[in-house]
């Protein structure tokens, strides 16, 4: 399979991801380790941003869904509902993720 990026470009992307991820983990230690209080806006965003971002990412993941044919939306809808239902039922991350993914793979490979 052809990659969109050259190996050097991919490496650069990965290193940027690594540096930024480390930065989000290190910032509190850099800013507040010697006392001092984080601004309330930061604490506020730390509370309200995560659920908004996860909802954003779910929509992003489903961006390829198309309503032109059943194959374009039925597998994603069925597997998405399955993930939520399994999780509400058992609260087992692995069961929910694997159950939904296997269902999706079966649907896109075998049924539609």
């Amino acid at each position, binding site marked *: 399979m052809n990659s969109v990026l050259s190996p050097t470009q991919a490496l650069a992307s990965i290193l940027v991801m690594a540096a930024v991820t480390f930065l989000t983990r290190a910032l509190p230690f850099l800013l507040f380790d010697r006392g001092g209080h984080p601004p309330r806006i930061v604490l506020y965003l730390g509370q309200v941003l995560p659920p*908004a971002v996860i909802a954003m990412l779910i*929509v992003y993941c489903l961006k390829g869904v198309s309503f032109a044919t059943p194959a374009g939306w039925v597998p994603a809808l069925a597997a998405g509902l399955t993930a*939520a239902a399994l999780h509400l039922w058992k609260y087992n*991350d*692995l069961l*929910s993720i694997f159950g939904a993914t296997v269902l999706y793979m079966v649907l896109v490979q075998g049924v539609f």
Partner: protein
Amino acid sequence: MNRKAIAAAFPVTVPVLMGYLAIGIAFGLMLQSIGYGALWAGFMSLVIYAGSGQYLGVSLLAMGAPLTQVALLTFIVNFRHLVYGLSLLEKVRGMGVRKLYMIFSLTDETYALLSSAKAPEGVREHDFYFWIALLNQSYWIAGSVLGAVAGQLLGFDTTGVDFAMTALFIVIAVDQWRSYSRHLPALLGGAATLVCLALFGPDNMLVPALAVIMLVLVLVRPGLEQKKGVERA
């Protein structure tokens, strides 16, 4: 000395072992399906080490996103780490060089274990924390590499394996929905992104969506903070 710390840390990390192997295998399979093999999977898990971040990373690599977008999205997906760090400042104080690794390895699961687990009698707390963190990352690397190797060797049809990312985010959303009393942020996040998808198309939707989400969250802050009665310092 260290053997004792490892023996104490390992049982605590077993649930994470199961979880990281499985989620890591799915990551390795997804990465392999876009043309990056075991070496890439292991390298990403070694230097990045973030579940949602690396899942999103697969998608960013697949579409060849520009570095600025990679940086912005990685920052936003990992924004919650800022809060983890704040509550662990005390625990890792005085760990010397190993503190750097503790900061680097602060994933959701490691954070959860560090917040709750207690070192048994005769094991130094800092050794105990360090081994929990190190064991957890070793599971994550092992899972990623296994997944990529499995994808390469078995050669089965991995079409659709990328749905693991969607399912992971749905699972997180369900957990958040139950633990948060306010659902406005989640509903806003979904709605704003749908609107941006319609307006800007699938390739350019995320940055405007993020801008709208941040703007609205800041604008509604007085109402949200009052309603919930966010603790005043």
